């Protein structure tokens, strides 16, 4: 096992979920390469080969727009997430890139205190190992939700 590769990827995944759960959404686009792709879909669409996303971005700029809209335009009740990510299976593709698969659960905590298991699913990642300042970055992150049903709305990214 390539321990350094494993730790590099797991560190990226850990920093990503902490940024979201700590409400540092402005940091979120920075976990992706400039042309990084992000997509949330359902296991049903994914399994049937249907392209429809719930959120889709093909650049860091589109991710920044999502944050800008959440901060300045969209209306939703105050809420937070708590992500739990499983151990990650990492496979090297080449010297610069790796593939990673992990499971996740997201608890959503409303300002009222009401908490629920909001989402579960898989992260299917393609990671650039030496992007930017030498840190690993996502070239692609596909979030496959187990359920086709979403309670009320999905504002904060997963």
């Amino acid at each position, binding site marked *: 096992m390539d321990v350094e590769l494993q730790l590099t990827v797991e560190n990226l995944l850990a920093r990503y979920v902490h940024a979201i759960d700590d409400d540092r959404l402005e940091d979120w686009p920075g976990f992706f390469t400039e042309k990084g792709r992000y997509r949330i879909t359902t296991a049903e*669409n994914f399994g049937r080969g249907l*392209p*429809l996303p719930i959120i889709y971005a093909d650049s860091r700029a*589109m991710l920044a727009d999502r944050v*800008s809209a959440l901060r300045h335009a969209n209306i939703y009740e105050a809420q937070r997430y708590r992500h739990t990510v499983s151990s990650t299976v990492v496979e090297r593709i080449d010297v610069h890139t790796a593939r990673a698969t992990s499971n996740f659960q997201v608890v959503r905590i409303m300002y009222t205190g009401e908490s629920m298991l909001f989402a579960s699913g898989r992260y299917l990642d393609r990671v650039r190992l030496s992007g930017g300042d030498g840190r690993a970055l996502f070239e692609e992150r596909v979030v496959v939700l187990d359920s086709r*049903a979403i309670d*009320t709305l999905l504002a904060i990214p997963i």
Partner: protein
Amino acid sequence: MPAAHESRAWPAEGLARVPYWIYQDEDIYVREQERIYRGDAWNFLGLEAELPEEGDFKTTFAGEMPVVVTRDETGAIRCFENRCAHRGALLCLADRGSAKEIACVYHNWTYDLRGNLTAVAFRRGVQGKGGMLADAEPESQAPRKFRVEIFCGLMFATLSDKTPPIERYIGPEVAARIRRVMKEPVKILGGYTQVLQSNWKLYFENVKDTYHASLLHLFFSTFRLNRLEQKGGVVVGGEGGSHASFTMMKSDQSGDEYERAGMRSASGGYALQAPQMLESVDEIGDGVTLQILTVFPGFVLQQIMNSLAVRQVLPKGVGRTELVWTCFGYASDDAAMDELRMKQSNLVGPAGYISLEDGAATGFVQRGVQGASSRASVVEMGGRGVESNESRVTETSVRGLWQQYRKHMGL
């Protein structure tokens, strides 16, 4: 305790008031199932393109009633109750699939694709013992069959012989606005379900309410992309429960109505880093960039730029609704169009830039009126009638919904 509706009278102001008990009373909900979904209304079942081959089926609901929709061996679309004649178990447990016949898993009673009971396991017993008497009539409890009509590739079903033909039910002006979107064969891009913590009517009002669009959904106005002063209109059709609202939108750098009125939605000063998402194509060729259309009680057709979708509004109890989205493109789409539709998917659905608020707003009302059964909402924008209107600062289509609703419900 007397049935709540006996002490419930519609407010004297008529369509200009909607009493809050209408979203809360259990017996109203029960009556809706009987008089609307199992009564003289057309239930939207989905797109015909979901069942392209003979033998394809899907399961869905007419109100709360589970149904199976099939394409039979003659190519016709059929719809019947998803309930076995024997003990009432669900016949079809999958959400979709393909079959030659349908067998109940409980005791293996089998049905053809039209919902006819074709075989009862061990009906004559085994080796002369057991089985049913010769005069048994299990067919008398067979799943109910719906009248099905297809309009522009949209599947509708009703249990009633009295429901007018679908096109007449929708009304000619709204029907024409369905035709403009469903102008050629479609391809399914996928779907998801949004669970709303509110009564179904609050969502159906929301989607008909053109007045809220640019006040609640601030995405376009924050990034200076849409204002109510732009050209558009509202058409109300059928018995009042069909509507289409449309906008000819252009990128807006002028007009200060909002600023002068001090509206929150004119916050301004923000710009998108990747506005390419909104570079839409006038694929219908009439300059309409946004069209939202409904047919009572649960059908929504959406054209938001190049994001096309149908939404099925399914009641799941007094305070809970499922919104089933199916997004589509045209079979003739090229790779560039596929990509544009992917990007514009960001506008709609539970995470949609201009739709995510709807998921919450209907819940705000459901929670807000918890202690106010005897009070009513004020629905007087654009007057008190249900006429079509050139302005979208109107609630005419919301009043249209209540006109048709009250007729079905005898309220």
